């Protein structure tokens, strides 16, 4: 597969690596694992099969073998040999076909899955690209113009279509549910009310390491003294400026700023769809409810994947 244009940030991602955080290596993997799972389903793969994560500006790709592909997640104007094709359904391609991601319509990241195995070696247990650390993926980084990605065991699979009721839409306005974090009790009621009562805008300096927010600065947060500890995905740290930063898949493994809350696992995939100027707000729920929401989400996904 030839990348005529690579796009802004196109990288190989699966569900990420685990067991390496004590070495300073965060999990990486797809930021929106829900969309990756759905794309893999449409081409007959296991949900965590490696695929391409495509960000903001998509690539222009020429296929060198016949296979089935699918795109889920962010919606782009998508052309196969200059004809419109769509997200959420299996698309068959043959040698020489050109797939072009044009204008981004909604969301931030989509996943392009293949009915074939990407011919790359795992590093530290995963094909996922850790972009800042240069681990895994294609040549340890994002794809560049003229790169060629090779595939093994390509096949064409029966076509599938996601029911309209199952397709996701990305409004640019989100409520992210949270639970308490290690330092939540260090914040005063006033500070917590300020945070949970505010709408924040996504800063354009956001990436796979962290999502920076603009808006209401939390008063006096620089006075909170903490002990640094393991930083998990979805942790919301309040920086000395009073503005929050949400850590994501390629984030640091140990954090030094106080965490006011953590986004729940069931809502983490939304982080992959945030882009500059989107609006988010936060709601605090209890741990038991977070666990129920996670199980419901798993059951929803399973009902699709097993259909």
């Amino acid at each position, binding site marked *: 597969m030839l990348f005529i244009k690579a796009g802004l940030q196109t990288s190989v991602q699966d569900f990420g690596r*685990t*067991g*390496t*955080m*004590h*070495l*300073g*290596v965060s999990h990486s993997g797809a930021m929106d694992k829900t969309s990756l799972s759905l794309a893999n389903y449409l081409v007959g793969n296991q949900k965590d099969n490696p695929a391409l994560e495509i960000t903001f500006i998509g690539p222009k790709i020429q296929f060198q073998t016949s296979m089935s592909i699918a795109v889920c997640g962010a919606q782009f104007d998508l052309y196969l040999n200059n004809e419109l094709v769509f997200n959420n359904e299996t698309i068959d391609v043959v040698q020489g076909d050109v797939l072009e991601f044009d204008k981004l319509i909604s969301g931030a990241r989509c996943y392009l899955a293949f009915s074939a195995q990407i011919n790359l070696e795992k*590093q*530290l247990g995963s094909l996922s690209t*850790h972009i*800042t*650390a*240069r*681990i*895994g993926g294609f040549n340890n980084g994002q794809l560049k113009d003229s790169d060629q990605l090779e595939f093994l065991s390509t096949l064409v699979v029966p076509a599938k279509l996601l029911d309209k009721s199952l397709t996701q839409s990305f409004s640019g306005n989100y409520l992210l549910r949270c*639970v*308490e*974090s*290690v330092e939540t*009790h260090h914040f005063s009621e006033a500070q917590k009310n300020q945070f949970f009562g505010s709408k924040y805008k996504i800063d354009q300096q956001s990436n796979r390491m962290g999502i920076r927010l603009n808006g209401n600065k939390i008063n006096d947060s620089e006075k909170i003294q903490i*002990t*640094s*500890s*393991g930083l*998990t*995905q*979805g*942790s919301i740290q309040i920086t000395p400026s009073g503005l929050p930063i949400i850590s994501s898949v390629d984030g*640091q*493994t*140990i954090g030094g700023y106080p*965490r006011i809350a*953590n*986004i*729940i*696992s069931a809502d983490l995939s939304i982080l992959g769809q945030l882009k500059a100027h989107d609006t988010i707000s936060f709601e605090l729920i209890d*741990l*038991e409810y*977070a*666990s129920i929401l*996670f199980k419901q989400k798993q059951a929803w996904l399973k009902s699709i994947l097993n259909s």
Partner: protein
Amino acid sequence: MSIESLDNKFDIEFEIGQNGDSAITLNFKNEIGETLTKNILLIKDSIADLINSAKLPDIIPAYQSLTLYYTEPLDDIEKIKNQISDIVKNTLLSITKSQQNKSKTSTKKIIRIPVCYEAPFAPDLNTLASFLAITTKELIEKHTNGNYLVHMLGFLPGFLYLGGLDESLHYPRKNTPAINIAKGSVGIGGQQTGIYPIESPGGWHIIGRTPLTLFDANKSKPTIAEPLDEIKFYAISSKEFIQLESQARN
């Protein structure tokens, strides 16, 4: 919660807090130091022995904490807190005198790291020396005289959190972090010294650079050191730096 070891040699005091829906963090009240780090690592090993890594793949030690990052959200956190408290208790009780003595006498692994403290590898050496009101020669001597204990790894891949920086070299981080610090840069920030394992932004004063690679994902042991190893820096010339760097490439 406070737990005393069998021989009263070490009391450990900690709290367990929720760290999102899939992790808990043990925060230790004891002072930062070699004893606490040793105990944290013993506790980490016990937990790793007793809980399946498919359920709990990441156990992350830090100066005064241990974070347990599970695969899925925890549906009964009280049960897990009790289980972990029991493991901590049993670990400390099982550290017998003989083990403590043994760990005291066992020889520490010392890792010697070459550092070139010359231009162009040391952009902040002169300014930091003048801030500290010492000569650059004194700064380099003090930095190379230190024995630095590895407390943990983290932040960036292969970054070593080191203890033991001479107090006269403590100096606050830069107000405005530099955008691009070269891989291998050796810096001082606050009470810490350390090496940037990859090119990254950062607020430390850069006093030298090592030609060694701190993290190599292709090696079975990707990092240059592990917790409780000791780091010693030694000065090399820029000519030696270039030689060592080209050796490392081949």
